[in-house]
């Protein structure tokens, strides 16, 4: 290790500025956590109007739904962290679900074989996305848009549009069963959450993935294997997306061709909330919170009997509130010049 002999260097510079910097912190938290305050208020209001909102049953409902979209959201968040975007998550989820259902119910394969096949196809498509981005240097937005079209063809190709009714009962257990009174999807979510959290925050892979999102060239010149890691994000995303698709199919006991479509926007919103809630740090926890916010927002509105228009407004508003909170907390740090 080369440690320079610093005593000889008489550096004067810059000693003055850092001392003052500490004071920035204060007001920042308030803005940054504004979204928590808003949601706190929202929960209180819904509870007053509809006491059913604050019941254990509803709590479970929210969490099961959260767990189903959480996998897609984690995957999307990881891709976003490395500076990519995956538009094909919904169709990957759909493809995995339909393939699993098709193999299991129409072709009579064993449940586990079918699930493994479903998960594998997600991983494979993810790999394809990743290769397009890393080897062919395509913009991920475009590459995954292409994949999305291809998958729509694939989905209709294998099923002809007919929905698959799920025959094996123990497959449904995955989505509907409980263990120790707690729904199975929540266990799966908990495990995936912990793994994803550890992966992103505690391993060099996760660290480097976020660094790539910050400045890819600097990472490359520092010996970070950007191709491998970027590829990895897409594979993980494909892989995790299948969980959402298969669990949803298990939960509703039927696989319909369009089943995954909803995951694109929901996963994207949750993942974006995740990357902004803690200012780009700790995205996995952020994403989980984002998913909870999204699900509970819509759940509360349904309890209130709100029409579909309010659902749209609510999702739009949620996105705006989140990015504004992020923006103002960043700005109070940077005080972007030129903006008088």
């Amino acid at each position: 290790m080369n440690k320079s002999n610093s005593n000889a260097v008489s550096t004067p510079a810059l000693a003055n500025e850092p001392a003052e910097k500490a004071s920035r912190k204060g007001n920042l938290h308030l803005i940054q956590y504004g979204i928590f305050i808003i949601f706190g208020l929202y929960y209180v209001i819904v509870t007053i109007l509809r006491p059913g909102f604050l019941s254990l049953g509803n709590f479970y409902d929210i969490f099961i739904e959260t767990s189903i979209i959480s996998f897609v959201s984690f995957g999307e968040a990881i891709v976003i962290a490395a500076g990519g975007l995956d538009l094909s998550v919904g169709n990957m989820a759909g493809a995995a679900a339909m393939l699993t259902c098709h193999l299991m119910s129409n072709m009579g394969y064993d449940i586990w074989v079918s699930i493994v096949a479903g998960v594998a196809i997600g991983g494979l498509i993810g790999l394809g996305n990743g290769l397009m981005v890393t080897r062919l240097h395509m913009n991920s937005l475009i590459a995954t848009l292409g994949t999305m079209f291809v998958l729509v063809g694939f989905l209709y190709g294998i099923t002809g549009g007919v929905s698959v009714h799920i025959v094996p009962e123990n497959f449904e257990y995955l989505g509907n069963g409980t263990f120790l009174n707690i729904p199975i999807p929540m266990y799966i979510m908990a495990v995936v959450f912990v793994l994803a959290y550890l992966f992103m925050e505690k391993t060099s892979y996760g660290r480097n993935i976020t660094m790539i999102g910050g400045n890819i060239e600097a990472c490359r010149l520092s010996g970070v294997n950007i191709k491998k890691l970027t590829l990895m994000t897409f594979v993980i995303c494909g892989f995790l997306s299948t969980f959402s698709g298969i669990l949803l199919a298990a939960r509703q006991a039927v696989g319909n061709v369009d089943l995954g479509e909803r995951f694109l926007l929901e996963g994207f919103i949750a993942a974006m909330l995740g990357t902004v809630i803690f200012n780009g740090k700790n995205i996995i926890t952020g994403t989980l919170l984002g998913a909870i916010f999204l699900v509970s927002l819509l759940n509360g509105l349904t309890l209130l009997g709100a029409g579909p228009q309010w659902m749209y407004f609510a999702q739009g508003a949620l996105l705006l509130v989140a990015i504004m909170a992020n923006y103002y907390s960043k700005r109070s740090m940077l005080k972007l010049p030129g903006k008088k």
Partner: protein
Amino acid sequence: MQKQPITPKGIINNYGATFAFIIAIIFFSFASQGFFSGQNLQNILVQSTSLGICAFGLTFVLITGEIDLSYGGVIGLVGAVLAGMLKDGHSIGLVTVVCLAIGLGTGLLNAILIVVLNLPSFLASVAVMFICMGAERIYNQGVTTWIRDPSVLSIVQGSVGPVPLPVLYLFALFFICWFLQTQTKAGQYVRALGENISAVKEVGIRASLLKSGVFVFAGLIFAFAGYIEILRIGGAVMYAGSHLLLSVLAACFLGTATFKAGKANFPGTLIGAFFLYTLLSGFTALGMKFYLVPFAQGLILIISVAISSARRGKIEQVQF
């Protein structure tokens, strides 16, 4: 202006999708009798009109280095208001003005969020899309509204001589956009803005004003696209915007592989829009299975963009 070495590889890189397009047309013409007829080619032009026009708006925004997905809501909202107001007996003149005003309004909203408040355009425009979808739903109460007045319908369904009106609109708008972007000062700045915004600010150009202008202009174009789409269908079907959401993106991205490798541009977008409908029409003419259409559209998007990205030599990241 352009001065780049002309090599076979360079041509393929820059014009990959253009070649694919030409090859597709030749292939379909030989493989099926019905395809290469005046009627069918005219169909393709007419069908791509609203998609193409909407994609011009997006192209403008993409050139500034931003993205604007709000058209996914604007088109539907404009449609709902258009059909609804006509049903209530308002004159088409007034209705047209209101429709364009909606485009102006959503464009302004985008501009405020993205330029003034400096929010990331991807997210902000998705939020605006949601808001427009909500507004659309409030306006039409979830019901499709039909337009019965033939004189109104003829604005889009009519033709001058042998040329259908939508084709005229498409090419007129194409020419306007192309001229504005490549031949005028403001257009230069828009391109420059997308490349290096501080350079533009430095020479005293009001970059934020310009960018806002682009969003507002795009909003107007989106509204116009919605107007055309709904009059072509003959009624305001629900969520017409989200029907076009992905195809418009695909057309713009195909466009980046058509003329200027990697950069959004108007001739490219125009061809991209034609391409998508050429595939639909060609595959139908060949009697292919329906699910092969999205399959082929996706593959061609991937392949042509892959060719034009190959020389990039590094991983491209998405900016929000």
